[in-house]
């Protein structure tokens, strides 16, 4: 008898508790969708912010830096040699001229 009363009290308590349970808070519209989007954004790889960052990243690549340096050295040597030839020709010409044609009669 006593046990039966206890069960009856439990059921009442349950009913009472259910009746007094606060209703779940109302979520903002498209809450779930927004949550998923934020999770996806957080998991996505970090992208370069601008072309400047992309260029800096490229410059810091050892292979790119090495190739660029080699191209610059080769171009410098090529232009320097061409210019040097002209300068050497001119210098040799002036040496000859100074020898055969005194500046007083030029």
């Amino acid at each position, binding site marked *: 008898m006593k046990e039966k009363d206890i069960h009856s009290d439990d059921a009442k308590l349950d009913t009472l508790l259910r009746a007094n349970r606060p209703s779940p808070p109302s979520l903002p519209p498209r809450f779930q969708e927004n949550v998923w989007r934020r999770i996806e954004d957080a998991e996505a790889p970090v992208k370069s*912010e601008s072309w400047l960052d992309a260029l800096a990243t490229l410059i810091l690549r050892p292979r790119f830096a090495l190739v660029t340096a080699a191209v610059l050295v080769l*171009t*410098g040597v090529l232009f320097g*040699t061409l*210019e040097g030839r002209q300068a050497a020709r001119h210098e*040799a010409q002036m*040496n000859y001229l100074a020898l055969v044609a*005194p500046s007083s009669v030029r």
Partner: protein
Amino acid sequence: MRNAMKRSLIILLGALALGSAIFAGSYFVAQRATVMCCVDPADNLSWLRTEFHLSDAEMARIRKLHDGYKPKCEEICAQIARQKQELQTLLGNSTNITTEAQAKLNEIAKLRAQCQAQMLQHFVTVSQAMPPEQGQRYLAEMKRLTLGFHEQTEQSMSGDSGHEHHH
């Protein structure tokens, strides 16, 4: 984000500076090396050999001609220098050109003309010691280098002043 951009900019500017230094360094080293390698300071006639593609025999002939010409040229140059010194003394601080100074100027002009004629004769002789085509090219080049300057000056002066000098 600002810091990242600043870092990128520094990297870019640093790379540009380094690149420029690499290019400039290579350029100047190559240029100097070429000049040092191609110009023989001990041989002032080397230009003739390279420019007019002369053989050893042709160079030997030209060297001989040059050795004959050099003392004559030096002698006239010494005379011109002496006359110029005397002219300076005659002019002194005067503001007028005296008859003596005028005579000295004429003497210097005569010596210069003599030197110039001798020089041109030497060019002709040297050109004849070269293969015909190269000889013509040499003569034209030497005329341009030695007489061209005066021609340019005279032309510009006659053009600017509006009257012509007839020589």
